[in-house]
């Protein structure tokens, strides 16, 4: 077996907000170039997982490790994680009134990729191409970040940032929610172009299998009550679509009792 350093390695992660535990021992390994999906119902700990990878200050890690290319992520501030190559596409992107999209993109690229990357013709052409691919009009650049954006615009804007920031690991938290089928297709195409054929890995968090038809994940994990109760290939998504989560619930209860 060849020794590849995993892109993301989560080991026995226990975490929550304050005293209430949410994650109760998660293990997950994503290798470079792989796409994994986490599925599960509301409240199963999906968003918590995403927030902990990015370093949301509200969450506390009780035990376990999160490593990016073998480096301890939990020691880093969120912006340091971003600069190390972690990207989170938010379920609820925040509005920053008065901060222009163009300005924000340039600043973000500059702080993650360096000043040079945010200057000159190359940046402009990358930006132009990415906006075209995502069907985002030029006028978007002078709007304020997520301020008055429709649900679909917010999600496309997250993917635009993904394409410009070119992270090592992209975590997409419910990027498909609230999108119609065209929106999902556009967003999926964006994700594919950011990940496929590169060493970038992705973790897609979703309720539904729809987006997974367009972004074919290598592995699917089902999260329930803060634990991964099932992992498998793309066929798992189809099974979930057909049978729902109940059979897993029964299964995990039975295992819990054993």
């Amino acid at each position, binding site marked *: 077996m060849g020794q590849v350093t995993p892109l993301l390695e989560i080991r026995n992660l226990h975490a929550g907000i304050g005293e209430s535990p949410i994650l109760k021992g998660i293990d997950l390994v994503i290798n470079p170039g792989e796409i994994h999906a986490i599925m599960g119902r509301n409240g199963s700990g999906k968003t918590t997982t995403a927030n902990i990878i*990015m*370093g*949301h*200050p*509200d969450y506390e890690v009780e035990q376990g490790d999160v490593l990016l290319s073998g480096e301890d992520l939990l020691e880093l*501030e*969120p*912006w340091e*994680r*971003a*600069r190390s190559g972690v*990207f*989170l596409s*938010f379920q*609820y*992107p*925040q*509005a*920053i*009134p*008065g*901060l*222009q999209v163009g300005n*924000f993109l340039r*600043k*973000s690229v500059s*702080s*993650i990729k360096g000043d040079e990357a945010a200057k000159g013709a190359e940046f402009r052409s990358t930006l132009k191409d990415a906006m075209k691919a995502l069907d985002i009009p030029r006028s978007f650049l002078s709007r*304020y*970040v997520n301020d008055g954006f429709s649900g679909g615009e917010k999600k496309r804007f997250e993917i635009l*940032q993904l394409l410009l*920031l070119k992270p090592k690991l992209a975590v997409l938290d419910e990027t498909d929610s609230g999108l119609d089928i065209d929106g999902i297709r556009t967003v999926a195409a964006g994700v594919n172009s950011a990940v496929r054929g590169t060493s970038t890995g992705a973790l897609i968090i979703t309720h539904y299998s729809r987006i997974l038809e367009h972004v074919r994940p290598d592995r699917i994990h089902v999260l329930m009550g803060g634990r991964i109760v099932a992992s498998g290939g793309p066929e798992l998504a189809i099974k979930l679509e057909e049978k729902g989560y109940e059979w897993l619930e029964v299964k995990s209860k039975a295992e819990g009792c054993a």
Partner: protein
Amino acid sequence: MTVNREAREAVGDYKAGWHDPENSTIRFDFGLSEEVVREISALKGEPGWMTETRVKAYRHFVERPMPTWGNTHVLEDIDFDGICYYLRSSDATEKEWEDVPEDIRNTFDRLGIPEAEQKWLSGVTAQYESEAVYHSIREDLEKQGVIFLDMDSGLREHPDIIRKWFCSVVPLTDNKFAALNTAVWSGGSFIYIPKGVHVEMPVQAYFRINAKNMGQFERTLIIADEGSSVHYVEGCTAPTYSTDSLHSAVVELIALPGAHIRYSTVQNWSTNVYNLVTKRGIAHEKAKIEWVDGNIGSKLTMKYPAVILKGEGSHAEVISVAYSGEGQHQDAGAKIHHLASNTTSKILSKSISKNGGRGSYRGLVKVSPKAKNCKLNVVCDALILDEQSRSDTYPTMEVANPTARCEHEASVSKVSDNQLFYLMSRGHSEEEALAMIVNGFFEPFTRELPMEYAVELNQLMALEMEGSIG
């Protein structure tokens, strides 16, 4: 306070009149009397009517009680006898660079302000070496018949125009501090724009670097004749270090029919300064007056740029921002008087308070019974950065004509952790994230400023946000 203290030691108990410290041509005076007022006027060689105006104003100042609103207990701390009312020398002070507090010098450095300009801003030198720029702009304006002078020269060269308009917008009996200014004014700008002349570029280039403009009691008068337009920019975003604790200016604007005046200010006085300024304009028929007013510095600012909409179809706009940090109180707002029909006004006020700072919006919009179909819109937004800080809103609308259409919106918000986290996830440190939110909040103001001011204001707010994350 260094200069005052040194000078006070030099003059001892000699409170009135003049004194020449050794090895210096500078005259200091502490405290005020009718004799001092007359002497200021005599030293300047002013016409008799101005001397009498000053004396009348002085008498009114003495009799007039302190304003009963605003931060009155702080106002009572002002020691009028401890203030130097006139510096004779044009070479303002003999202040040493070393006397300028270190935090202010650091801020200059970090804003990237050249040393020569830093020294001017601190009052260490009176002139900034940019005479060439100043002259070319001035020549260009002169060709169009624009008069652009400091107020003292204006009075010497155009006494008739000044006599006609001086105190016509802000009468000497207006308020205690306007009376004080009228009694002891020095410096400020006098601008006359002839009929139909449009001054294309904002006229700030030389005022930023002209020491005469920045004084304790400057007096500015701008007259835009029919159909003309001008954008005047006063002050600067960089810290203005003053050893004098009172800044009390008066600005009068007259926009004749169809004229357009925009007056932009950003004040960043050091936090020992009481900044008590009366700014008012009269807009004649179809004229437009805009105040763009930013308050970053000072201990206490009380400033309510006002517009009297005297002519039909005239328009007023007041866009202001205020930042109150530790120990600061920005009591700012706007006053609009709709005297004529079909007049419109818009007030946008934004304030940020932090580290126990206090920001107040105080506004008055009045519609007179005869003014029909007026439209007025008031929006005040406050952003409070921590639990110790405070924001108050005192909006007043007196609408005496039922055809008026009034809109008022107010909001108070806090920076949310989720906003910060969102920005941090894009590679920005917590302080940078906070600065981005704060600058975004001020953006509707900043975008109205000339570019270099906008950039500097953003940098300045970023500096203010440093060390604020606990």
